[in-house]
């Protein structure tokens, strides 16, 4: 394993969950028990998932490191590999290399409020941190999750949203874009930045974690700024096209920063130092 960085672990798809149109979550278990025992990761890291004969695709690990014995990934059927991946079934064998990249510094957030802001298919990278924090709930003060999608059907992790809604120690606000609501929709209607502005979460002792499409991120940062959030306390995770995942293949860099090695987790303060190349 160590000799060949490119050798994936063999993983069995244990469970398939349909999240939204074109979006699925796979629960993956290691075929080889030794691999399972040796494997560790932290919230924020990613991997290369492969369908043999088709290729590899990069996504974060969507499950929490506090949940042992498996990993989960959530992906949207979009390109060649995700289409092939989507065609896999429970019991199918796929490849996984990882974990790669840096992590959310959850240990440093002890005693703080956590504010999660996510849009669309960007909840999966955050779900890892959310469950990580909720499994260590006593370490944090208020936990607020603001999640939006284009329409009700596009919301992912619908069952978990229900769970979070019911929990007294989580404040969940869901929203859909105007026109994306269903007749029985009880959440907010509006774009994520607008809803953040409306909810106006306090920036006092609060870490904000923001993941979403570029346009959502672009308009959310100024709102957080106006709420008094320091750039050092706003985290996000970047995506760039990757092949290797470990700083060799040469395509994910933003200026001299490698998203696969120095990221994918960055603070807004770090992002502001980077050239516009992501």
């Amino acid at each position, binding site marked *: 394993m*160590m*000799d*060949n*960085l*490119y*050798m*994936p672990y*063999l993983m*069995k798809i244990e469970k398939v969950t349909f999240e939204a149109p074109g979006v699925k979550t796979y629960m993956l278990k290691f*075929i080889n028990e030794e691999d399972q025992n040796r494997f560790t990761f932290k919230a924020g890291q990613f991997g290369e998932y*492969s*369908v*043999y*004969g*088709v*290729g*590899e695709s990069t996504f974060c690990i969507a499950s929490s490191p506090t949940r042992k014995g498996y990993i989960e990934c959530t992906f949207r059927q*979009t*390109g060649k590999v*995700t289409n092939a991946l989507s065609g896999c079934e429970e019991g199918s*064998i796929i*490849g996984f290399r990882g974990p790669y990249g840096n992590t959310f510094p959850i240990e440093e957030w002890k005693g703080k409020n956590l504010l999660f802001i996510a849009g669309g298919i960007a909840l999966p990278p955050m779900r890892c941190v959310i469950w990580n924090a909720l499994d260590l709930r006593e370490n944090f003060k208020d936990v607020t999750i603001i999640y939006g999608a284009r329409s009700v059907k596009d919301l992912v992790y619908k069952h978990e949203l229900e769970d979070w809604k019911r929990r007294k120690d989580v404040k969940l606000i869901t929203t859909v874009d105007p026109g994306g609501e269903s007749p029985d929709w009880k959440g907010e209607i509006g774009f994520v930045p607008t809803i953040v502005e409306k909810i106006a979460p306090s920036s006092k002792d609060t870490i904000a974690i923001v993941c979403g499409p*570029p346009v959502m991120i672009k308009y959310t940062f100024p709102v957080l700024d106006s709420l008094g959030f320091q750039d050092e306390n706003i985290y996000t995770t970047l*995506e*760039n*096209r990757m*092949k*290797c995942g*470990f*700083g*060799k*293949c*040469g*395509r*994910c*860099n*933003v*200026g*001299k920063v490698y998203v696969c*090695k120095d990221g994918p987790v960055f603070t807004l303060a770090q992002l502001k130092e980077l*050239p516009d*190349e*992501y």
Partner: protein
Amino acid sequence: MNIDKRLVSKDSLEKLFDILKQNSKTIYAPATKNGKVSFSEADSFSGIATDYIQTTQSSKDVDFPRTEKILDYTRNENGMSVKGIDLNDIPEIVLWGVRPCDAMGIGELSAIFNWDYKDEIYNNRLSRVTVFGFSCSKSDEYCFCTSVGGNPGNTTGSDILFTQLGEDGDYLAEVLTDKGSAVVSLASGLFEAATDIEKGKYLADVPVRFNREEISKKLEKSFESGLWIDQSLRCLGCGACAYVCPTCACFDIQDEAHGKSGSRVRCWDSCGFSLFTLHTSGHNPREVQSQRWRQRIMHKFSYMPDRLSVYGCTGCGRCSRACPADMNILEHLISIQEAVV
């Protein structure tokens, strides 16, 4: 350290070739084919080209093959069997006739393949290669090794550096590494002691054209500069520059399926290609050619020195020779040095 200097007579070179062959060494050497000089497996000494300034392709293919298998997989009743490349299968190679600029490029490739994660496939290949550098007695207008830390008789990266002492002359052999010494011990009779030979006067004269440290400093402030657009107007995005470069290491990973089995391969890629950074969503962080050209120069002259303490250019000039649009990297680097930023 005193370099172990030896004299190898012109005739002994062929004997050395034969001895290496008798010792089951695979020899890669420049050969002329269709008017181009390229490295290929050499069966006979007479087939080795000597009259070339620079091979069309660099020698990097030997330690970083253009397309290289990473693993094989087979689907079977029990699921899937996957087997990685067997590193023991990698052959021992003598790379004969490498120009000092290509030899220097090995260190730069190694820096990329070994910062942080160590790429053992690359390292294993390299560990089995013995590099016979051959100094340059000739250069052309595309050469600029002396501007990027090299020179026509540079020893960096070679295990033995041969310098021909005048046209039709004998060879000075500088034995530089243990791998080089191992070759000498195979054919010690051919390597006479020769401590007092100076090679300087036999080397090509390559003038210094720019200062790379100064360029690196300029680039720190040039990300938004308009010069990237000016310089890349002609660029077709064909990637030829990357494919001939001794230090370009960017690669792609692709699967090749044949029914129930297949392989995964690592193959050369280029930051000049529009698809290189394209996201599945359609978003492309380097949307236009000027951004891709900027990446090429920045990576070699700013990011690599900063992150890896090496430059990604050895001054071989191949990218300029290969460019179908006649872009000349030397001209562009000089214009960066002269630019007001």
